[in-house]
């Protein structure tokens, strides 16, 4: 049943695509006719010069009109179908995507996987990628795709929706919400006084056997990439080895670390801030809380974001989708349901969130520079034995 509904949507999408292609085809035909006219004029005798000029003028006008008509139609309503590669979890974004599909009538298909895996997949696919939009939970995965030259530059009005720190410097992708690295702690087994001020402080005997992390998580890899960029490979490799030596509990993702801290199984986990807030929103008595480190990559605030693939055949719909992520309803969803920082000015952050200005994130992080360290980060993590 479900797949039948999907098929219908696809058929609808194809129908709309055809309508669009027909208008483009008409435009092309007009251009072709005009060119043919020009050729005929050139081949003709001198006396027909005036006529040639006239033909040229007509063709230019016809071309403009046709292009304008085609553009006007696209602006009037976004149509077609969209394939989204989402590195953000289904439970976090499915509602927003469904609302976009319902409002615009665009048939949307989503492929969910880890952000890094999808970035790698996109890099492998290159021009044959079926994806139109890449929605990522971290800027490094976006940077990897940008580095491969697979994104289109986004229109300035989309880039201007959010503050400059959450935008790719070359305009290949734009932030859609903000998240901070943090430590989740079980307040029954930890004290504020023993908490380090930066991430390197976790390398301490007092934390032996008490740490948790998700070595395959895109945000953890992003943090390690940031550490390599600011502190150098050697220091990071040493830190990773030391953390491994202290004995850690490995988790597949961030959310189970918060659940483990809540259950009393884990003292300190390295996560993104919002998982803890989600638990606290459900149960205000939960013994977990976030520790925001004071500076360094452990305090990094990074954007989740999106870009449009150059190979996309549905760019207007793809851009419309990204603009939809900046809409008030989507931004409010991100802050009130997911507990992220909204990026569009004028949206009130959820009350559980700290002031974004109070966080001491490293300033002026160059996301594309960090993306260059992704592979090295993965290698160091693997080499340290995680």
């Amino acid at each position, binding site marked *: 049943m479900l797949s039948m509904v999907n098929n219908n949507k696809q058929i609808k999408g194809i129908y709309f695509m055809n309508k669009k292609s027909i208008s483009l085809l008409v435009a092309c035909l007009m251009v072709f006719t005009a060119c043919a006219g020009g050729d005929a004029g050139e081949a003709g005798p001198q006396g027909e010069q005036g006529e040639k000029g006239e033909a040229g003028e007509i063709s230019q006008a016809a071309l403009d009109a046709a292009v304008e008509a085609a553009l006007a139609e696209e602006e009037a309503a976004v149509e077609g179908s969209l394939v989204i590669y989402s590195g953000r979890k289904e439970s976090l974004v499915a509602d927003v995507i469904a609302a976009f599909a319902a409002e615009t009538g665009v048939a949307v298909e989503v492929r969910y996987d880890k952000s890094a895996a999808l970035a790698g997949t996109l*890099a492998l696919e290159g021009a044959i990628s079926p994806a139109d939009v890449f929605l990522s939970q971290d800027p490094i995965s976006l940077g990897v795709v940008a580095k491969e030259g697979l994104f289109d530059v986004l229109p300035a009005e989309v880039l201007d929706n959010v503050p400059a720190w959450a935008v790719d410097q070359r305009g290949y992708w734009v932030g859609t919400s903000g998240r901070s690295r943090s430590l989740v702690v079980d307040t029954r087994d930890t004290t504020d006084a023993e908490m380090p001020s930066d991430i390197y402080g976790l390398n301490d005997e007092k934390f032996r056997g008490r740490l948790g992390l998700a070595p395959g998580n895109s945000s953890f890899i992003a943090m390690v990439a940031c550490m390599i960029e600011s502190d150098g490979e050697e220091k990071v490799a040493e830190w990773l080895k030391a953390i491994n030596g202290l004995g850690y509990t490995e988790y597949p993702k961030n959310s189970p670390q918060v659940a483990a801290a809540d259950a009393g199984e884990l003292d300190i986990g390295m996560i993104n801030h919002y998982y803890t807030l989600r638990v606290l929103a459900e149960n205000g008595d939960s013994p977990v809380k976030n520790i925001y480190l004071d500076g360094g990559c452990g305090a990094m605030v990074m954007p989740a974001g999106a870009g449009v693939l150059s190979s996309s055949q549905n760019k207007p719909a793809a851009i419309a989708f990204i603009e939809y992520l900046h809409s008030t309803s989507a931004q409010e969803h991100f802050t009130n349901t997911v507990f992220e920082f909204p990026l569009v000015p004028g949206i009130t952050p959820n009350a559980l969130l700290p002031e974004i200005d109070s966080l001491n994130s490293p300033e002026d992080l160059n996301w594309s520079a960090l993306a260059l360290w992704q592979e090295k980060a993965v290698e160091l993590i693997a080499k340290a034995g995680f």
Partner: protein
Amino acid sequence: MKTPKALIITNFIILITFLLPTFYLIWRFLTFTKSYVSFFRSWNVFDLLLNTILLFIFVVISSLILGLLISIILVRFNIPGSKILFTLSVLPLVIPSYIGALTYVSAFSPKGLFVQLFSSLGINEIAGIDGFFGSWLVLTLFTYPYVLLICSSALRNLDSTVEDAARSLGKNRFNVYTQVVIPRLKKPIIFSGLLVGLYVISDFGAVSLMRYSTLTKAIYSYYEFNINGDPVIFYSSILIVLALLISFIQRGSEEARSAKVSGTPKISEKTNLSPRSKVLIYTFLSLVIFSGLILPISVLSYWLIRGLSAGNSVRAVFGGVVGSLSVSLLAALFSVIVSTPIIIMVSQYRSKFGNVLERIMLALYGLPHISVGVAILFITIKIFPSIYQSFTALIISYLIVFLPQAIGAGQASMEQVKSNYLDASSGLGMSKLKSFYRITLPLIYRGLFAGGALVFLSTMKELPQTLLLRPTGLNTMAIDIWSYASEGLFTQAAFSSFILLAISAIPTYILSTRNLTT
């Protein structure tokens, strides 16, 4: 009889398609631009190989011990209720390893179900079952039934004259088993041990839920966070070579196995036991059945009830059920279509090509799913982008690893088609195609159907290939179970697990019992 050209061409195309993934991996392996040394330096190849081989050795040994011991107990000793005990001891086979692993992980995590249930007794925390120990335990519990099925059947048919002679020469019962019976079961032991071994090195679900780093887990993690496909190709190639090696040895032992002694064997009489030994044996069997069957089912039931009472919606698993059923049906249908020309060629026309075809197809049975999935992923991106992320690619990938099951089942039924039937038919002026339709097909369709059913069941439980190759929007129960379980959302995982078991358990039991016993 001369083999029809159309049949040769069809089978040749099938063969080339099926060998493509292996050849592609080997070709990529041979043309790496980086030096092999750099792989060994950058990635923990030795650790992964060592972990994989350690698990292989330990699970094979423990499965053999468990399977043989239960075979001997139930076949050679007079135990009331041995039939039902046999069925119960074989049943863990129907539980896919990742479902087994999720029940153990959730029950025995440091503060898991076990601790919650017994907290009143003062238990606050346990060491937890994961890593090597967890993988070993779970894989042993869900693979020993293969040994049990194969060895008990061999033991039943074993001629007992040699044992009687040994006993009359004054050997005690223990020595008769260690020095006579087990050595004479050498071939089924090797065959079933390596079958378990193939299962172990290809297993992805259990080791990844147990967080034990083997080659399969590494392939998936590198796929998940590496832009550069080299380590994925590198590990997949190593794994495929390892599997082919094991599969090759195993096939050799199977050929030897099918060479049976002529005449009716003298069947050993069942030995009576003292009440004390009976208690011991019942305790042992209960423990095994409890760990392999009752515990996993109880844990799943617990999570299911907890999920239902928390108001988990049935709708969330609906997509996975529909997806699983549709891909499994497609795979089953195509397995019948593709296996038919191979079965006809191998059974009706004795030719060199037929022999090669048979051997290769059977060897493919051992190919690790994840390696085939990786190869098909790369092939479709680099060479055939038009079928990338399509059902076509996914089904081809399933068929490569599951077709031997369909061939095996079909071949057995093909033995009924005597060549003189076909000679008579052509003597009566029927064309070859008509003979096939009127004579061969009616005789073999049951076998083809059984083969299709096996492929259906295997596809429904398949995990790594589906993860790598699924078309966008396709969800299956296996994917749901694995992703929920790896996030620790056991109530959701239990839901899909139950539906999967409800659909597959009984047919899996019937078909495996039929296939693995002679």
